[in-house]
């Protein structure tokens, strides 16, 4: 059931076609399996495509987000797209949700109690919101306290435009004495 070898579209076109039908980021290795080419060659072609779109002034971009490749509209076309898409508007996160999200992102997996301790307020409602928005998910229970642990989802990475959690901005410069704080703060 392999495509006929004699009349194949170029690799570039094959990748473009697959990218057009996916609704989530696709890893290069998955694409490589589909087109039956080495992952490395596929990676290079994808990068060339991304460059091609950029230089060609296309209205779309090919980007790696959350560990996969995906087509996006160009940022400066947002006014038109927003006008067209009714359902696409994401409600803005509140300050409380953002702060809670940032604690979870940097401390995951982490319990609500611990997030509350950092923020100095109860975070139950905010955590429910973040769960419903798909930005965090449950990740087992804390062995000591039995409390539910939370971690961030690939969707958050997508929304941040990041490949992986490693790309989160470094917290160290913002936090003079992380070690001291950790030591002093009872869990």
């Amino acid at each position, binding site marked *: 059931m392999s495509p006929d070898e004699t009349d194949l579209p170029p690799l570039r076109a094959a990748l473009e076609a697959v990218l057009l039908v996916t609704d989530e980021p696709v890893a290069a290795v998955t694409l490589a399996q589909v087109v039956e080419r080495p992952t490395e060659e596929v990676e290079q072609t994808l990068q060339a495509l991304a460059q091609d779109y950029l230089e060609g002034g296309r209205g779309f971009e090919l980007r790696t987000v959350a560990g996969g490749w995906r087509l996006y509209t160009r940022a400066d076309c947002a006014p038109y797209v927003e006008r067209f898409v009714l359902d696409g508007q994401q409600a803005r996160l509140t300050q409380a949700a953002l702060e809670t999200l940032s604690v979870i992102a940097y401390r995951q997996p982490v319990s609500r109690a611990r997030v509350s301790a950092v923020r100095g307020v109860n975070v139950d409602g905010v955590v429910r919101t973040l769960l419903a928005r798909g930005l965090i998910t449950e990740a087992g229970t804390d062995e000591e306290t039995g409390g539910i642990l939370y971690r961030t989802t690939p969707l958050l990475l997508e929304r941040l435009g990041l490949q992986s959690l490693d790309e989160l901005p470094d917290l160290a410069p913002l936090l003079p004495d992380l070690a001291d*704080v950790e030591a*002093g703060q009872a869990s």
Partner: protein
Amino acid sequence: MVEVSTAEPGTDGQFAVRLDNFEGPFDLLLSLISKHQLDVTEVALSKVTDDFIAHIRAAGTTWDLGQATEFLVVAATLLDLKAARLLPSAEVEDEEDLALLEARDLLFARLLQYRAYKLAAAQLAQMLAAESRRFPRQVRLEPQYAGLLPEVLLGLGPQEFAAMAARALTPRLEPVVAIDHVHGATVSVREHTAILRERLQRTGGGSFRSLTSDCQGTLEVVARFLGLLELYREGFVAFEQLEALGDLHIRWTGGDQTDIDPALDPAAAAGAEWDEPTEDEPTQDNPDEQEPM
């Protein structure tokens, strides 16, 4: 220094603050420090202590004690520190002072930690905003491919399907931290102030240790300390300390005045309001109370 203020000055130049405008005591502290154009240092903590206390007073009857315990704990620590700075020497001589220094370090560390996550949150917000201008391709399959999908199997019958719906629609009972003890421990600063006033008028004075010897738990000690500061502010008591970091002695200087008219004393009136118990149950002598940390 990054601006962290989230408060808007009121029209009268005062901060018209409702408690729920602030995401917790650290948010309030950072706002105050920012308002005074100070860097986040321990010195800044000392400079905004009065403001901090004023703000939680201004919250008046809107206090939800369950939500506000962190504010109370932070307020108590700040007041402790403020009082300690009145001492002639900073030498650490006993365990209480050591505990106070630890409390100061912990408070400061937690404030810095909170600030770091707040700054990180601001960066995340920028990233989210930038990213929200890009829309991912996210559409249904073209009909010719949709038809390729294998016939979908549910793998369950109507009863199982209904049971699944019932499970999904039943609100999940999330494990909650019991806060009964917090509510049970509602402590009234006004009542403790009254106790102090009566006792000091009668005896003329005493050590802080003796004035709090009958307290049940930390919250009551805190309440009594707040009450003492209240009386000190109003000029009804004087503090004396015979040796550095020694016992704090309180002397009644208010004469025979038996009552203070709250109407003539806005601060006292506010103080009397913000700790008003929210429940009908007795607010003292509750054996369950404990420090809500």
